[in-house]
């Protein structure tokens, strides 16, 4: 019996020393040992090979449907005026009683059916479909059995991901988070000084680096000269809670968010001991003015870390950027936009909060191949004269969407859970009414020709 205990003890020791020596220490000093790079290279080669095999397999079996990543239908992009105008051209016009024709309904009908088949909004709240399978069961859409070799590789993948990578990653996450809590609490005991700030930054960055390795994250930062500076507001598109880890690997930010209970609460409370983050109570969140005031007070102090805000307010699936809430753009200060784009081949980073809770989500993350993403720092922006908060927000949103190769939408991310406002329908009705009645008014004012 003692023999078994001794062996287990030895194994645990070996395990921990590997983890500490090969992962933790390099993480603290920001050094990469290159394991992740090699891993990614091997992965890319394997996935390319798999894609070729699947394509070859699909050609042989002609009954297999080919994957289309670019939609089910091709839409006309004409405006209401253009489309209805075209419809009416064939119809003899009699303007005596207003410009309405029975075929006007065709326009609304066609638009409606098009939206039933494919719309711009609902697809943003589920994971992106892949053009070709990446050997994860969860993304298996229409890929059927192709060959023995592919299945073997898939099986090997399952083993590697669940039996080797998952325990490693869980260990790292555990170490990273406990380090954060312990480290920040210790630093919090120090009196305010430059040394304290420096230590606090070190603790935070180390923890995030460890967590990033815990996800096998490979992050490419672009345009580092535009990195957010103190006293500024960093604004980014939101795909998952991991965005925070991704950004904080390359800089220190003050987080903004709601106070949670449980484990999150513990982490939040300890973080705030070493450097000021902005945590709101649930009741405070409802009061927009209180929130704005606190943020304004915070950024007035130019020595404080830049705050990190996700103006979409909810997680979107990284194919588009949805409406930015104007709150963050009203408080003044310099905005540092950041675009984050994940590569879906290696793992789907999107958190579908309707489908998975936080724990299942993290498990899914830790059993993906890896997280590969690009982060672009965009040049700072400030509100120009004559521009209101909404226009400013849209300008920043477009810049981020353009850089990240994402679709720029004006729809509210809140539509994930709520119904669309009636006012949008009223806008459509108003637009149509002016088409019917416009000529009538004209007749009335001009008189018989």
């Amino acid at each position, binding site marked *: 019996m003692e023999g078994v205990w001794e062996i287990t003890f030895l194994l645990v020791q070996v395990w921990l020393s590997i983890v500490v020596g090969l992962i933790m220490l390099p993480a603290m000093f920001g050094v990469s040992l290159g394991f992740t790079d090699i891993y990614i290279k091997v992965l890319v080669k394997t996935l390319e090979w798999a894609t070729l095999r699947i394509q070859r397999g699909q050609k042989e079996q002609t009954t297999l*449907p*080919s994957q*289309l990543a*670019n*939609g*089910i*239908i*091709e839409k006309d992009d004409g405006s209401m005026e253009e489309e209805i105008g*075209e419809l009416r051209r*064939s*119809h003899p016009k*009699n303007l*005596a*009683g*207003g410009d*309405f*024709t*029975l*075929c*006007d*309904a*065709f*326009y*609304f*009908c*066609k*638009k*409606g*059916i*098009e*939206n*039933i*088949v*494919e*719309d*711009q*909004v*609902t697809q943003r709240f*589920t*994971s992106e479909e892949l053009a070709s399978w990446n050997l994860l*069961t*969860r*993304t298996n*859409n*229409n890929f059927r059995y192709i060959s023995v070799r592919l299945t073997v590789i898939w099986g090997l993948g399952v083993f590697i991901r669940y039996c080797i990578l998952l325990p490693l990653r869980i260990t790292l996450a555990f170490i990273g988070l406990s380090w954060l809590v312990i480290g920040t609490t210790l630093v919090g005991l120090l009196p305010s000084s430059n040394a304290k700030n420096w230590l606090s930054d070190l603790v935070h960055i180390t923890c995030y680096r460890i967590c990033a390795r815990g996800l096998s994250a490979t992050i490419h930062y672009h345009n580092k000269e535009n990195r957010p500076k103190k006293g500024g507001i960093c604004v980014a598109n939101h795909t998952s809670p991991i965005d925070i880890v991704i950004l904080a690997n390359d800089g220190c930010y003050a987080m903004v968010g709601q106070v949670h209970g449980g484990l999150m609460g513990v982490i939040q409370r300890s973080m705030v001991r070493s450097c000021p983050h902005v945590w709101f109570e649930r009741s405070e969140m409802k009061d927009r003015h209180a929130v704005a005031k606190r943020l304004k007070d915070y950024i007035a102090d130019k020595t404080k870390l830049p705050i990190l805000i996700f103006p979409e307010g909810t997680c979107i699936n990284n194919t588009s950027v949805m409406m930015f809430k104007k709150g963050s753009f009203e408080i003044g200060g310099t905005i540092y936009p950041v675009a984050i784009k994940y590569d879906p081949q290696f793992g789907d980073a999107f958190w579908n909060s309707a489908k998975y809770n936080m724990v299942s989500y993290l498990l899914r993350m830790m059993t993906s191949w890896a997280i590969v993403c690009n982060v672009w720092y965009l040049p700072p922006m400030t509100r120009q004269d004559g521009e209101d908060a909404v226009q400013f927000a849209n300008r920043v949103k477009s810049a981020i969407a353009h850089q990240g190769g994402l679709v720029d939408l004006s*729809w509210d991310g809140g539509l994930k859970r709520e*119904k*669309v406002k009636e006012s*949008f*329908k*009223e*806008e*459509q*009705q*108003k637009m*149509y*009414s*002016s088409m*019917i*009645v416009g000529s009538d008014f004209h007749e009335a004012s001009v008189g018989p020709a």
Partner: protein
Amino acid sequence: MGSRASSLLREEDIEEIKRETGFSHSQITRLYSRFHSLDKGENGALSREDFQRIPELAINPLGDRIINAFFPEGEDQVNFRGFMRTLAHFRPVEDNEKNKNLTSGEPLNSRANKLLFAFRLYDLDRDDKISRDELLQVLRMMVGVNISDEQLGSIADRTIQEADTNGDMCISFSEFTKVLEKVDVEQKMSIRFLH
């Protein structure tokens, strides 16, 4: 997500739908994925609320009428067959040339059937006539609060006057067809499905 969805659709069902509607195999599987993603209750059928959840449809002035077209008289649920049958009206007519093995009888996407679909948008009580009252109600849906009752009334009167040939102050389907005979229905009531 897609994987479970397509495995619930059997090959025999796909073949039947292919014969009935003229959609291709890949179109049917893709539309089934879409159907499944709209079906939040996961019970194999869509309710009116499932359609209302599409924001661009919810803001469409005729959104309710279009949604209604999917549901047979008196029912609140539409299954995949019904869904496809309704969508089939919007297949382009040229596609019929490629698909010679359709069932006999008029294809769902013929010009006449497209016009019938549009006619039923106006015909609220499904009695095969568009009365002045029905036309007023649909017009009201399209314009909201922006036009007065009198003006809307005169628009309705003028429309019925133009179309009505047998003097019953209603528009029948044949009168509807006659009025719109020059309109390119095939193009305006068709959606280009890829593949």
